[in-house]
């Protein structure tokens, strides 16, 4: 009669025991060490596995597992895992503030004394992963660049040439539009791309390289001076050459527009170079040109580094791997396995095989370079600047208003 009254406590017990009994087979008794590596680069599983296999030949007892998380969720998941003590042993580190925060929270290990690190990287390449007291919290891994992708076939067919300055660029867009092409593939829907690739890509042309950026950071120059207003105005001027309905064109849409020859040019980062390797047309790159009277500078941005978790159970092995990345041999192997459009940051002269990658690097020759403007010190202005650029391009506000709105937050 009271069967159910017996059954219920048993059910209760089951609820408790099921999870507990499910564990088991955890301990592996062997001297093999397995390290996990967290990353936001889901695209690079193949390349990273090649790299890690090369390392395995040197350290046969150490297996490093590459476990990337899809990028929109990377920050959130990594943070949760670190907070709860379940983070990976090795992981990609973002540059500047995002990385510094995780070092301050005690999750990134001090990498300063890893052999080769301080000697084999230039001061400017170390800086993005350095605390103000000089402590390094990661080993620099790769940088990215920004430029204008253009469809060489269409340029040839229409008898067009690479513009010398910004004014020529605008008239080039005008010519293309009159001939019935969509001049530029860029859109606003995803928000980050218009800011990071286009606005930060052209900003060094207007304000100069790193030495000038510092003056803005310190407040010596205001963020609504003539240079900035001109830069916002440049964004307003190109809006009409973006696709119809560019307000809802996503980054993926932009890539497809360029790749399917519906748009002739695309201002984008070097990381996309690999996307167009099978494109049925010839394409090339040119630097976003500076306006008349100014010199063209390049946004060459330190993007990723690798670091280790302070809580790793195998610090020796993790350090050894990082040290290998700082050696000439390790860096060369790593660079050969970087996806195209990612550039090694180590001092040794490393030859890249991909012609487009070399084309990107050649744009740097004789020019000033700098990271994306807000990254080093002004990251809190990222969102306001992003909104300002979007509003200017939609024609909601003037370039002056855009610059003022950001300066107001300084």
């Amino acid at each position, binding site marked *: *009669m009271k069967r*159910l009254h017996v059954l219920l406590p048993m059910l209760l017990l089951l609820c408790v025991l099921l999870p507990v009994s499910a*564990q088991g087979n955890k301990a592996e008794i062997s001297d093999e060490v397995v390290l996990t590596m967290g990353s936001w680069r889901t695209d690079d599983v193949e390349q990273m596995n090649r790299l890690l296999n090369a390392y395995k030949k040197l350290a046969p007892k150490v297996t490093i597992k590459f476990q990337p*998380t899809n990028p929109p*969720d990377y920050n959130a*998941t990594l943070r949760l895992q670190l907070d709860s003590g379940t983070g990976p042993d090795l992981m990609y580190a973002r540059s500047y503030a995002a990385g510094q925060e995780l070092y301050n929270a005690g999750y990134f290990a001090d990498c300063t004394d890893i052999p080769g690190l301080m000697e084999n990287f230039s001061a400017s390449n170390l800086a993005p992963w350095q605390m103000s007291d000089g402590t390094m919290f990661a080993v620099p891994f790769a940088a990215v660049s920004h430029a204008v992708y253009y469809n060489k076939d269409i340029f040839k067919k229409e008898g067009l040439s690479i513009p010398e300055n910004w004014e020529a660029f605008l008239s080039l867009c005008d010519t293309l539009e009159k001939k019935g092409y969509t001049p530029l593939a860029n859109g606003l829907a995803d928000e980050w791309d218009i800011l990071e690739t286009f606005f930060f890509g052209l900003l060094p042309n207007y304000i100069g390289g790193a030495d000038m950026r510092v003056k803005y950071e310190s407040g010596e120059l205001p963020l609504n001076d003539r240079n900035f207003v001109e830069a916002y105005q440049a964004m307003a001027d190109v809006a009409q050459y973006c696709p119809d309905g560019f307000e809802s064109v996503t980054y993926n849409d932009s890539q497809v527009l360029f*790749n*399917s020859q519906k748009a002739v040019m695309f201002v984008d980062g070097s990381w996309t170079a690999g996307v167009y390797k099978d494109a049925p047309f010839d394409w090339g790159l040119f630097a976003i040109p500076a306006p008349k009277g100014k010199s063209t500078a390049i946004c060459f941005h330190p993007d990723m580094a690798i670091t280790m978790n302070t809580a790793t159970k195998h610090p020796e092995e993790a350090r050894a791997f990082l040290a290998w990345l700082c050696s000439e041999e390790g860096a060369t192997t790593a660079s050969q396995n970087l996806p195209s459009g990612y550039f090694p940051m180590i001092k040794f002269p490393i030859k890249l095989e991909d012609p487009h990658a070399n084309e990107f690097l050649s744009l740097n020759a004789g020019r000033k370079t700098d990271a994306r403007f807000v990254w080093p010190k002004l990251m809190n202005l990222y969102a306001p600047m992003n909104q300002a650029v979007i509003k200017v391009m939609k024609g909601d506000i003037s370039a002056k208003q855009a610059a003022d709105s950001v300066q107001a937050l300084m």
Partner: protein
Amino acid sequence: MRGSLRKENRHIFSHIVLLLWTFVVLFPIWVLVINSFKTRLTIYENPFWIPKTWEFSNYTTVLRDGDFFTYFKNSFFVVSISLVLVTLLASLAGYALARYKSRIGTIIYYFFIAGMMIPIKIASIKLLEIMRALGLLNTIYALPPIYVAMGLPVGVFILTTFIRELPEDLYEAAIIDGASSGKIYSMIILPLIRPALATTAIYNLIPFWNDLWFPLIFINDERHKTLLLGVTRLFGQYQTDWSKVLAVLTLSAIPVLVLYLAMSSQFIKGVTAGSVKG
């Protein structure tokens, strides 16, 4: 007279309305299915019409790729065990809350209801710590306890309401017959609330099957990934192969639909057993 009745039974207006909605539903599904047979780029040549060349490789690579079967199995295991437990525990609790008329009962009822109102994501860190303490990290066993807990508030809410709506004389008759509360639950309540059990199960099925968040933070091990987590490896930082994603997700929607059909047949059974109210 007979003629007018037949006309009434044709329900022309209803059919027109429902056919309109059918179009609103099926057009996007048409877009989904045809584009899953294209390539990353050809989707955009003409997104609304059949591909020039049918690309079956999206499906064949998914089906050949053994991992997706593992993911599928994992999802299926996690979802089915969670659903069984949610409906069972929630129906027991709902029965008690409907019949247990006291202050404590009311408090417990609102304690459950409160759980619907806070996004569980906020508790992620604590849940990670609990799962680590239980040694369940990196295994699919970490998921059912959370899903059951997540499903209980809604389950208790729906089932309590349904059981409360059952007529009082049902119990009186049973108690006069000398039935224990356990017997009333299993012999009288359970058969009567089948439609509500099915509702609860279907309502929870969707978020369990399509949950990405908890697998994402709990599971790194390939062998323990769920289907949706597996799909995310098709997402790159800057580019996504949408034709493949569409193919996988088309496949992943099918089991949910089958389960829905299986469970919604409970409604029809429920009618014959449950026309007690009035």
